[in-house]
C-alpha cells in the first residue's frame, strides 16, 4: 500500500519537473510561498492566541484569497487549457489577476485595523 503511494508520488514529481513549463513553475513557487505564509499565521494563532483577532483574520484571508487568485491565473495561462479560455489571452488573465488583487488588498487593509 505505502509502496504504491510512494511510487505515485515519485512518478508525479518526475512528471512535474519534466512536463511543466517554466512559467507555470514560477507561479507554483509563488503559490507555495502563499501557502506557507498562511499556514504559519494559523500556527501562531493556535499557539499564542487570537488576541488581535481582526488582524489574524485579515492576514489569513489575504493568504487564502491570494492563493485562489494565483490558482486562477495558473489555470488561465496553462496552454493545455487554451480550449476552455479562448477569449482570454495570457495578458488579460494577468490583468484580471492584478485587478482582483487590488480589491483584495483594499479590503484586507481596511480590516487589519
Amino acid at each position, binding site marked *: 500500500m505505502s509502496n504504491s503511494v510512494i511510487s505515485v508520488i515519485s512518478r508525479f514529481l518526475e512528471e512535474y519537473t519534466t512536463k511543466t513549463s*517554466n512559467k507555470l*513553475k*514560477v507561479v507554483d*513557487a*509563488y503559490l*507555495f*510561498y502563499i501557502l*506557507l*505564509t498562511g499556514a*504559519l*499565521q494559523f500556527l*501562531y494563532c493556535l499557539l*499564542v*492566541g487570537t*488576541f488581535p483577532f481582526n488582524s489574524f483574520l485579515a492576514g489569513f484571508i489575504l493568504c487564502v484569497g491570494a492563493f485562489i487568485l494565483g490558482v486562477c491565473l495558473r489555470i488561465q495561462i496553462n496552454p493545455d487549457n487554451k480550449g476552455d479560455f479562448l477569449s482570454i*489571452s*495570457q*495578458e*488579460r488573465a*494577468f*490583468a484580471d489577476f*492584478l485587478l482582483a488583487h*487590488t480589491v483584495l*488588498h*483594499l479590503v484586507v*487593509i*481596511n480590516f*487589519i485595523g
Partner: protein
Amino acid sequence: MCNGCVFCLVLLTVALGAQALTPSHHLSLSDVDRLKGLLSQPFTDLASAYYSIVGLSKLGASVDACQFLKAQLDPMSVDSLFFAAEASQAIADCEMPVFNETRDILLAAVSEDSTVTQIFRAVSALSSLGLPLASQEVVAALVARIAKEDNVLAITTALQTATRLSQQAELGGILEEIEDLAARLDDLGGVYLQFEEGLEATALFVTAAYTLSDHADTEPPLKEDQVIQLVNSVFSKKSWDSRSEAFSVACAAAALSSNRFHVPVIVSTQGPATVSHSQPILHLLVTDILSNPLASANLLVESAQAVASKSVVLSQAPFSLRNGIFELNFMASQPASGYYQFTVAVTGDSRLVANQVELKVKVSTEVAVTNMDLSVVDKDQSIGTKTSRVDYPFKAKGSFTADSHQNFAMNFQLVDANTGVELTPHQTFVRFHNQKTGQEVVFVAEPDSKNLYKFELDTAERKSEFDSMSGTYVLHLIVGDATLENPILWNVADVVLKFLDEEAPAAIQSKTLYMPKPDIQHLFREPEKKPPTVVSNTFTALVLSPFLLLLILWFKLGANISNFSLSPSSVLFHVGHACMLGLMYVYWTHLNMFQTLKYLAIIGSLTFLAGNRMLAQKAVKRYGQSSTLTFFTRSTCEN
C-alpha cells in the same frame, strides 16, 4: 362623591328635560363698580365722552358734561355730530345746536358709497337730533353695504342702525342677519360662545341683537343655551382694556337685563352654602346679570337630595322673600349632616333664561364623644384588668401601663350632639407622642358594624412603629370631617409603654437615610492581555521567512527580468503598481477608506492605462513570434 354629583345632575337633567347650562360668569356689584370706575375716567375728546356718558347711563349713573359736548362739537363732521348727539341724549336737558347744514351733511352720508359705520353714525345723529330721515332709503343702503362688507362688525353696526329706523320699514332682511351672525360664533367647550374678533364684537352683537328684536317686536333666534354661553363670554373678563370695550360690556349688560324676550337670571348664595343648627336658614339671592335683584321672581326648591344616600329630603318647597333675600329653613326638615344636591327653579317671569339651577348645600353639625373607655387587657386572659371611663374634655387620672404581654384598648362612640345619631367622620385618629424623643405614631380608629369605635394597641406587634422606645406617650384623640363644626383634639391620657429593652436600636436609623452614600469608583474595561514582545517578534520573522524561500525558488527556476522593455508604458505601469502598494501601506497607517479610494482611483486609472498598453505590446510581440514560427514551420513543411 363628585362622581355621584355628576350622575345626579345628568339624571335630573334627563328626568326634568331642562337644560343644565347656567351662567358661570356675571357682573357682581364690585364688578359693576369697577366698570363704572373705568368709564368715569376723565375724557378729553368727543369719542371718549360718548363712551363714558352713554356707558354710564346704561349702568344707571349719569354724568353732566353738556358744556364739554357743546364746546367740542364740530358741526361739519358726521362722527363729531354722532358722538355729541348720542351723548347729549343720555344727559337730561342737554340739546345740541342744529345748523342748517347739519341735516344735509348727515343725509349725504346715508348712501351706498359710505361705509356702514358712516351710515350708522349719520342715522343715529339724525334720529337723536330729531331730524327726519327716509327709512326705506337707509334700508336699501344698508342691504347694499352688507353685501359688500361681509365682516362681523359691519353687520352688527347695520343691526344697530336698523334700531333707529321707523317700525314700518321693511326690516325683515336685516333681522335675518342676526341668525346668520349667530352661526358665525365660535363654540368654546360648550361654555363660551364668542366671535374670533373678540369680546367687544361679541358684546356689541348681543346689544344690537336684543335692541333690534325689541324694536321689531320679534323674538331673537337665539336658543337659551346660546344666550347663556354669550353671557359667559361677555362677562368672563373682569378688567377691561379700553373705554370702548367697557362701553360695549355695559351696553350688553343693559340689553340682557332689560329686553323683552330673554333675561338671564343668576341664583347665588349669600356666603357659603352651609346650614347648621345655629344657622338653620339657607339664604339665596336672585339677580339679573348686573346683580340687580329681580322684582317679580319666586324661588322654589324642586328637590333636595342627599348625595350620600340619594334619598329626597325636600320637594316643591317655596322660599320666602325677606328684604330682597330668599330664605328657607332647611333644618326644619331634620336633615342628617352631609351634602345635599338642591335643584331650585325661578318662576314669575316668562322671559327668564337659565331659571333652573343646581346647588350643593352642606349641612354641618357638632360631634360629641361618648362612652370613652380605656383599658389594659392581658393577652392571655382577654379580661380587662383596668377599665376607666373618661369624659370629654377631661384627661384620665393616672396613667396606663402596657408592656409586651398586654394590649392597650380604647372604645368610644361618636354621636351628633344635636340629634344623638351615630356619626362616622372621615378622620378618627389616635396619636401617641413621646415627649422625650419627639416620636409621633398615629393610628386610625375604625368603627364596627354598630358604629362603635374600637382601637387596640398590641405592644409587641407594633414595636417597630415605636422603634421599641419605652417611655411615657401622651395619647390624643383627633376627630375631624368637612361637616363637623367642632373638630376634636383631645388629650385623653398618658400611656406608659414598655418594650423589651434589648431590642431597642442604638440610634435612629432614619437619620442616615439622608447622608451622602459611599462613592462608587468607575472601573474602566481592562485591556486584553498581550503576548510578550519576544514571541510576537519571533513569529513576525517566521511569517516573513517564506518570502526568502520564494526568491530562492524563483532564482533556481531561472525567472529573470531580462525581457523587461524600457517603454514608457511599462515603466509607468510598474511605478503605478508600486504606488498602489505604497498607498495600501499609507491607508493602513494614516488614511480612511474615502481618501484611499480617491487616491486609488487616480493611481489605478493611470496604472490601468499604462498596463493595458504594456500588455498589448507584449501580446503583439508574442503573437508576432508565434506567427513567425508557424510561418517558418509551414514553409518548411511545405517544402
